[in-house]
């Protein structure tokens, strides 16, 4: 079967099994970046995020017939990605923590930001490091909710659908996660005097 990379403007019928590979190109194009971003935020490893992004789409392709359209394709893919990330995290939690302690979490690039002073840049970097460290300490579900909310800016309803939870539960997870991050930030330094305007 010849798979062609065709630029399409309209969403094809993704559940048409006869044309699925061709249609799937469109789906991959639409969603590969956010899926990779979510997996990278959850796994903290670009190679693993890349591999799991591919796995996510492959699983989606295999299960296309079971996609009933109850949620959007994006939400469905996020759900698959979250499940993959959780399964993967269970297998390599130890290594994950070691990497975090070594400071391998992504942070702002080293390229200078001309709009900020060196002190502001340092402060921002410290803040980001503190948030990533706090996120790493969160339980899986809280971590996922936090990443989807603050890295991906998904709505609470979308997160609830993606995680198969009630919106109230998502709010609860988010509230706890934010509390932990806040405490971590406050503990990490003398933020009261250094808080940006």
């Amino acid at each position, binding site marked *: *079967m010849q*798979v062609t*990379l065709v630029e399409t403007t309209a969403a094809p019928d993704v559940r048409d*099994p006869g044309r*699925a*590979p061709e249609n*799937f*190109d469109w789906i*991959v*194009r639409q969603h*590969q*970046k956010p899926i*990779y*971003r979510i997996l*990278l*935020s959850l796994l903290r490893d*670009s190679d693993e*995020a*890349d591999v799991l*992004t*591919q796995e996510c*789409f*492959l699983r989606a*392709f*295999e299960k296309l017939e079971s996609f009933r359209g109850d949620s959007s394709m994006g939400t469905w893919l996020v759900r698959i990605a979250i499940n993959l990330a959780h399964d993967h995290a269970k297998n390599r939690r130890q290594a994950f923590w070691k990497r975090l302690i070594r400071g391998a979490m*992504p*942070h*702002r*690039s080293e390229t200078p930001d001309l709009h900020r002073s060196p002190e502001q840049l340092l402060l*921002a970097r410290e*803040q*980001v490091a*503190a*948030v*990533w460290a706090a*996120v790493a300490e969160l339980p899986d579900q809280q971590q996922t909710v936090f*990443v989807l*909310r*603050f*890295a991906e*800016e998904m*709505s*609470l309803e979308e997160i609830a659908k993606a995680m198969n939870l009630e919106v109230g539960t998502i*709010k609860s997870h*988010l*509230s706890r996660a*934010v509390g932990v*991050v*806040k405490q971590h*930030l*406050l503990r990490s330094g003398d*933020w*009261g005097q250094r*808080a*940006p*305007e």
Partner: protein
Amino acid sequence: MNSLPKDHHVKLPQRNPGAKISAEEKAEWLLLKNALKEFRDSARQAAEKPESFWENQRQKVLACCERKAPVRHQRFIWSWATALVLVVLGIMVLVERQQPVKPDFAAGYDQQLLLDIDRTLDRDVPAALEPGSLLPEEIFPTGRITAAP
């Protein structure tokens, strides 16, 4: 995107609706808000890749899909073929059971029939009444049946 979503759950602390927020609380809130914005930006920046990366990833995904598609098609055909064979076998078994037992017209059957007819004709008592004819013989072994006085 310079601001956090509206329902981001990072709200100014309000113990009482009318109470004023202390400077410390406001500073904490600003700190958190800024840190979350930095977090979002860092997550996005970390995931920024050249177009070749995305193209390569897409090609890999589609290549895997291409390999999977015939397998899926074959699985579909095999499942239908198996189901069809089972249905045909079931129908054959049912038809076999419903067929009436036909007499065997092979050699010897006619001969046996003629012998049975001969035996029937030779009998003093029809076969159906034979049990009834044996009953008096068992009651009166002497063979005499006397009438009541």
